[in-house]
């Protein structure tokens, strides 16, 4: 298949996943901001949303303060932010249009319908109390595309490239969402492990649709190290880092089989997977959760660059 086609499939899947992830981040942030913290609300949740979305510099170049309005405007609707939800959907659809012959009808129609419905959502409507409906809509559209991909696409290279996009992006996003906790300052007098802390951890689980799953797996209340283990090292958790890593490895293995060739991307993917598969959560905390996650994000980027170099150029 054409390298450009593979590139477009990979990126359109990444952008749809990114739109979903942003919706999840905004949802948690909004929930956290409603929390009765007992201190002056300093809006640090909204600042942290900007940080975990990876656009701190660009955001503050444009806005002085991370108010809810500014952050929602920038992360959800700003056409100048290439990673806003709107931009993600538009880029995904533009990519899709360029390779529509490689998509199934279901995939194309779900993306096209998403793009057609997008102008119906705007800041005014969201400010008027529809934020959650909007975020749900984004999540639903992304899940519909993903479902369409899994249910209808021929299991060949184009399918593997599409899924690579989804999981490289998701791996990055789960790491960032988990890292929110690092950037969230506890109010001055709140105690670690206290009500506010608990609430923050619960929100992180909710952001990755993992709250009920967590309880089903652990049954012993929310413990930070267990939550970290759950989102990093438990393969049964579909958005965990190791799940994403296993999927990526699988996609690359299948491509390797189909093309009869393995390369540097396979090695990097194997390395990432091994670290998650054979590492221990104690070590993660010893290294520092934030440091561990930053390193993961970096390695994941390297893998993405390697995939681009080997297949997409």
């Amino acid at each position, binding site marked *: *298949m*054409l*390298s*450009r*086609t*593979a590139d477009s499939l990979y990126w359109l899947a990444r952008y749809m996943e990114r739109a979903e992830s942003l919706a999840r981040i905004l949802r948690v942030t909004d929930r956290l901001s409603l929390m009765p913290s007992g201190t002056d609300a300093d809006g640090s949740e909204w600042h942290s949303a900007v940080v975990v979305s990876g656009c701190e510099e660009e955001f503050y170049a444009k806005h002085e303060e991370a108010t809810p309005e500014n952050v929602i405007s920038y992360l959800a609707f700003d056409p100048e932010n290439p990673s806003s939800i709107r931009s993600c959907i538009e880029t995904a659809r*533009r990519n899709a*249009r*360029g*390779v*529509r*012959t490689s998509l199934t*009808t279901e995939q*194309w*129609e779900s993306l*096209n*319908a998403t793009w*057609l419905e997008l102008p119906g959502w705007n800041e005014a409507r969201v400010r008027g109390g529809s934020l959650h409906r909007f975020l749900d809509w984004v999540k639903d559209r992304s899940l519909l595309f993903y479902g369409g991909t899994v249910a209808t696409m021929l299991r060949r*290279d184009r399918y593997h*490239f599409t899924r690579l996009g989804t999981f490289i992006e998701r791996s990055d996003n789960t790491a960032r969402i988990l890292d929110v906790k690092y950037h969230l300052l506890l109010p001055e007098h709140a105690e670690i492990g206290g009500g506010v802390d608990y609430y923050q951890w619960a929100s992180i689980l909710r952001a990755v649709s993992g709250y009920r799953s967590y309880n089903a797996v652990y049954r012993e209340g929310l413990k930070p190290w267990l939550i970290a283990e759950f989102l990093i090292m438990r393969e049964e958790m579909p958005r965990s880092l190791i799940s994403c890593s296993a999927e990526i490895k699988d996609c690359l293995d299948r491509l390797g089989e189909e*093309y009869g*060739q393995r390369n540097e991307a396979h090695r990097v993917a194997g390395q990432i997977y091994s670290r998650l598969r054979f590492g221990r959560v104690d070590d993660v905390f010893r290294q520092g959760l934030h440091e561990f996650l930053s390193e993961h994000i970096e390695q994941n980027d390297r893998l993405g660059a390697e995939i681009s170099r080997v*297949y*997409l*150029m």
Partner: protein
Amino acid sequence: MASAFFDEMGPRGAEVRQAYRILQAWLDETPTEILTLRREEAETFFRRAGITFAVYGEGGDPERIIPFDIIPRILEAAEWKQISDGLVQRVKALNAFIADVYGAQDILAAGLVPREQVLLNEAWYCQMQGVALPHNIYTHIAGIDMVRVGPDEFYVLEDNCRTPSGVSYMLENREITMRLFPDLFSRYNVAPVDHYCDELMRTLTSIAPRNCVGEPTVAVLTPGIYNSAYYEHSFLADQMGVELVEGPDLYVMDDIVYMRTTQGPKRVDVIYRRVDDAFLDPLTFRPDSALGVAGLMSAYRAGNVNLTNAVGAGIADDKSIYTYVPKMIEFYLGEQPILKNVPTWRCSDPDDAAYVLDRLGELVVKEIHGSGGYGMLVGPKATKAEIAEFALRIKAKPGKYIAQPTLALSTCPTFVDDGVAPRHVDIRPFILSGAEIRVVPGGLTRVAMREGSLVVNSSQGGGTKDTWVLKG
């Protein structure tokens, strides 16, 4: 006024023509609300599927859908036979002409077409002189625009030998009509068109370069997603199961064309290109073109890749060359033309120009290199000021214009705001030439949706219809 035009269903109040009787009965029994509902369904279908085209430089919605009229146009088998035979004959002559002007130039030597008409024409490419193409075919996919003025009277309005578009609409219109009106469709015995893409693929593989080994690799070359016909490019590539490539996906090394794939370079043998000649190769033509492939012409001339349609095929569809087509048919085939040409005055000729300037109010004046209904004057519909302005343009550059009588285009029943009413139509059938010539029974019928309008171009608000050719 309507009586001045031939209506294909039959004039109001008179007997309904044979082919339309079932349709008429069906229309009588179908309430308007149902038709409205079906029209909305059709629009939703086109939107959802993203079957759109772009209108340049007008702002507004960049991706529009072409209005689709839900009432099919119906042609009898015998009517189609005459058209189809005429098309085959015409395209054979056009191909022979192009091969000739880039080769021996017999027709110029015989004095049938003036030398300067060809050699000084901007559509004539010296780079194509002496290049031998497989089967001597230049216009592999031709779209011939025709109008009807009476029961047995068809005129060719224009030959499109470069990159005629619209065939995807012919196919999608059939698809949607069968979906919307299965009962009506089943009451008729309609010849299928869905095998067009198979025929196209067969045509393309039949013209692979002589040195191609094994199954030829075919690709469709598009200028990209912002091109007005992008949907069609992707549709055709998809239906044929070949790659849809853009310029940067291809490169040339040692006169061989390759595409960049996830498994490394892959050689390409036949390119169905939807990029204009001038943009094909920055080394040969426009150096600023980002749509083309550097070195493509060299590979083409070396016979290592074949292009459809051939570079320089436009020499045969120039509106000033058009007038010579009947002579070409006699010259190359020794036959009488089956399809008629519209009488045409060439303003390059002083007598013709004088005649045209005298009668601007009755004539249609077109730019020789114009298309899409732009830059033309429809005399009977124009204001005095417009006519005066056009007269100045003709006097300034007479060689740029031709004129034709205003034809009484036939009308077909069309579903418009105030119900079913006659609207003017033309038709563009598609002719495939490779090792053999193939014509799929049907074409793209374009319809002027506005009452009385004779301009059917989609860029000017025209719509399309499904075209049913009945089996004999």
